[in-house]
């Protein structure tokens, strides 16, 4: 099976990553968001959710969507090492997606956070879930983070009081574009976790079931007038 041998050479080495346990967050609107690790079978719905945002320059949705699209595709086709995807879904409809990567023992690399449903801090909750996975479940001590949008910078660098390692380690650059790299350390995480990270576990079976088959949103506040399939 030459193709398999070739494919094996093309795939990055993969570590056995601990799973991220699903949780339930009641948003300020009262809506219940199931937060769970995405499965490869979800890739179609995830890609279909991200795709329409490729043309939205406001708040840098275009670049985040483009990069997240490639990250999800790379994850689905085994072209990124140790990537994981976490999704937030309300009644099964995708409200936000985060991507990230385990680099090596003790070190994680946050990739992207894409908020579909805005105004309820969905992105903030999913970013916190991503950090929770890195540090609490994968046992990492540091997560490297960059921001591409001012909103991202305000949410992560400022609100988490992340450490700017640019001056300390001039050679250390996040793999996304080489922009200045900030770091969430275990110590910082423990300090902010009580006010940033929430969720009820286990998720009641009937609610978890609603997020089993992910649904692409029909409309986006980022795309006024746009309707899926129209």
């Amino acid at each position: 099976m030459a193709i398999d041998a070739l494919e094996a050479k093309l795939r990055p080495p993969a570590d056995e990553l601990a799973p991220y346990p699903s949780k339930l967050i009641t948003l300020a609107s009262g809506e219940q968001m199931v937060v769970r690790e995405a499965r490869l079978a979800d890739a179609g719905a995830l890609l279909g959710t991200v795709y329409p945002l490729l043309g939205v320059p406001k708040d840098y949705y275009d670049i985040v969507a483009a990069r997240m699209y490639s990250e999800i595709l790379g994850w689905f086709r085994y072209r990124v090492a140790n990537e994981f995807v976490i999704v937030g879904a309300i009644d099964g409809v995708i409200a936000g997606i985060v991507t990230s990567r385990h680099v090596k023992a003790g070190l994680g690399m946050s990739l992207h956070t894409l908020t579909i449903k805005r105004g309820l801090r969905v992105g903030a909750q999913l970013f916190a879930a991503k950090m929770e996975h890195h540090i609490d479940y994968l046992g990492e001590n540091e997560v490297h983070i960059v921001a591409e949008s001012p909103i991202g910078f305000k949410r992560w660098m400022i609100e988490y009081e992340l450490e700017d390692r640019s001056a300390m380690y001039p050679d250390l650059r996040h793999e996304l574009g080489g922009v200045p790299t900030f770091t969430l350390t275990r110590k910082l995480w423990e300090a902010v976790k009580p006010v940033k990270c929430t969720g009820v576990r286990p998720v009641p079976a009937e609610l978890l079931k609603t997020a089993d088959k992910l649904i692409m949103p029909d409309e986006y506040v980022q795309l006024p007038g746009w309707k899926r399939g129209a």
Partner: protein
Amino acid sequence: MSARIGIVGIGHCRFGNSSEYDLVDVIAYSANDAFRDAGGLHLRKEVDQVLVGNMAAGMFNHQTSVASALISRMDMEPCPAELVENGPASGASAIRLGYMAIASGMADVVLVAAGEVMRVVSGWEATNIVATMAHTEAEYNMGLTLPGFAGMFTRLYMEKYGMTERDLALVAVKDHDNGAKNIYSHVQLPVTIEAIADGENANVVNNYVAEPLRMYSTCPISDGSAAVILVNMDSPKAKLFPKKPIRIAGIASATDTHCVHNRKDPLVLDAVRISAEKAYKMAGVGPKDISLAELHDAFVIFELLNSEEVGFFERGKSFLGVRNRETEIGGRIPINTSGGLKAKGHPVGATGVSQVVELVRQLRGEAEEGRQVKDPKYGMAVNFGGFGNNVVTTILAKD
């Protein structure tokens, strides 16, 4: 005052994030909207005076002479134009000065346009800029910010009168419910008391900003603008405006000590009470005549305190009125039908004008379905500058 002065045009943009736009364009949007509402853009040439409300363009946008810029942007030369700065009460102060310009006989038509673009800086920097309104030596240099101040204020009120954090959340739920129906609101999402106060995730979903103030006790940082056109109802120019004016029945301002420490009781907002008393007297009405009120609620504690100072509730009892749903639309005295600063947003310099636009919409019967107060006669707006040290109260009447 014998002059009859009314509002014949209103304009408003949706509050939110306009940081991609130039401040002057943002203000011009609402000003043009007001002219369209008043009868057409050609009416720009009838304006005798332009007053622009803005608090901190010099700091937020590195821009000064905003009034001059607006005149050129709107092709309104050689109309006189000035900027009015009174902290977050800049908008209402501009309306008051517009009223005075007409009452003095120096103008018959005044455009008051106000706006702020704040989201060009981080939330922390915006908080810092807004904090410059505090007393420099005694407050700002000590690290006090407005949320910090309001947090202490809220704690004092809770200890004195028995209000709980849940009571604060009830105000937020009411304001968000109204804001969700307002096309101009920054935050158009209703929130539930279970999610922001009672539920297991409430501590994170509604996190502390300055304990006991939480995120949903605090206004968002917003960009936006609003505008009104004032007319001397007895002048020949009034006939150029087809819409029936909504009359400014009373408008008054009052001040209090700049340094809050110098007040006998920090929970007593003398400037609100005195400005309201003067406005009531000018209008010939009292608290029981008011059909609805827009009360400055940068922090929800202010909505409660203001509602006591203007006479809607006894001191220390306003939160009980909220519990009894008296301040909801359909209640005894609907407060912040627009969503208030809490949900509609608070682009500081624009807020006072925005409050008055909401009153005009309500008095005309033009508010959205589910948000319209039934048959209102008088509307009141309280716009709060500084930490209650420079307040403007406006009472509008539907004749």
